[in-house]
């Protein structure tokens, strides 16, 4: 009985240690997935959000990108557009937040692949975007490229992927 209790205690301790290890030292993949999830949350705008909140959201959004980040969009019906650098991204985000009453963004089917150097990552996902409480949702496959810069995982490139060629 004593041995069983000791084994149980040992196993419990090991499980707790493992859990603490995961929490304190998360894997790069987990960090990147967390980053993507947090990006979606930041991109959301409610109709009740005022200008100050929206401006804060733009600043927060920019912090996810590296200074030389590039966003390349080619959406059916909307044409192709490329934004380069934080300033262009900030301008586009601010313009979008002014024109939109609300925006709901979700990233589904997210897959993160960490590069062999552990300093880069590629994330593929499907963005589900609903603007102005519309019933129609825009669905777009996206590919993000992340790079670890000064300890932070920052987006260096975002591009739309053509699901149908």
């Amino acid at each position, binding site marked *: 009985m004593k041995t069983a209790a000791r084994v149980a205690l040992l196993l419990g301790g090991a499980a707790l240690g493992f859990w603490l290890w995961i929490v304190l030292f998360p894997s790069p993949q987990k960090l990147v997935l967390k980053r993507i999830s947090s990006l979606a949350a930041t991109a959301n705008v409610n109709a009740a959000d005022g200008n100050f909140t929206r401006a804060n959201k733009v600043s927060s959004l920019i912090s996810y990108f590296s200074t030389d980040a590039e966003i390349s969009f080619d959406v*059916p*019906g909307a044409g192709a557009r490329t934004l380069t650098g934080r300033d262009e991204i900030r301008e586009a985000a601010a313009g979008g937040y002014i024109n939109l009453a609300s925006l709901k963004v979700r990233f589904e*089917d997210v897959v993160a692949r960490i590069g062999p150097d552990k300093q880069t990552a590629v994330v593929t996902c*499907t963005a589900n975007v609903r603007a102005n409480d519309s019933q129609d949702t825009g669905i777009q*496959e996206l590919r993000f490229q992340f790079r670890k810069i000064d300890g932070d995982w920052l987006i260096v490139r975002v591009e739309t992927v*053509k*699901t149908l060629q």
Partner: protein
Amino acid sequence: MAARSNLPRSGFGQRVARDFRLVYFFGTVTQETNKSAPEPGWLQIVLIGRRPKYTLIRILVLVSVVALTTKFVLLPIRVEGISMEPTYRNHKIDCVNRLAYLLHQPMRGDVVAIRFSEPDSLATPKELLMKRIIGLPGENVAFHEGRVYINGHLLDEPYLKSTCDWEHAPILCGPGQYYVVGDNRTMPFEYHVQGRADRDRIIGKVLL
């Protein structure tokens, strides 16, 4: 226990009668009322059956079968959007048969579910495209005056209920590529999501 402590104290007979009703209702037999084999009450029979252990096993088996079926065999979907109207109305509930193409390849006219990004390991994709196959691998697909031409031959499309004026030069489907398009072609060509889907993105055939 709380119910028993609240029993009326006016007479022994009344207390026993109340006890019996209580016992019968919950299907448990106490020493005071009956020492014979336990007889389940109607509520227990209705809720968990005569043998709770077997009922639990049945529930677990049922839940596992349903979970596995809806994940790997029949994937429940809800149609969002109008690109497949009038065949598939917006918000319609349907199922995707994921085993449809185990024995044969997709065929022309099949309405298929196409995944966007690659889901992680065994995860089921949450977002899917629903389109109809009109072109098979190696075929040229062209649109002229809103009609589809496969390798120069007009394709009969009885499922179309409206006309359009789409014009597009022939597009060659490579090996393992299927040309897919929606049934609702009332919108301009460039606004309609269509094109060549790789075979590995087609996850199944829409059931109904």
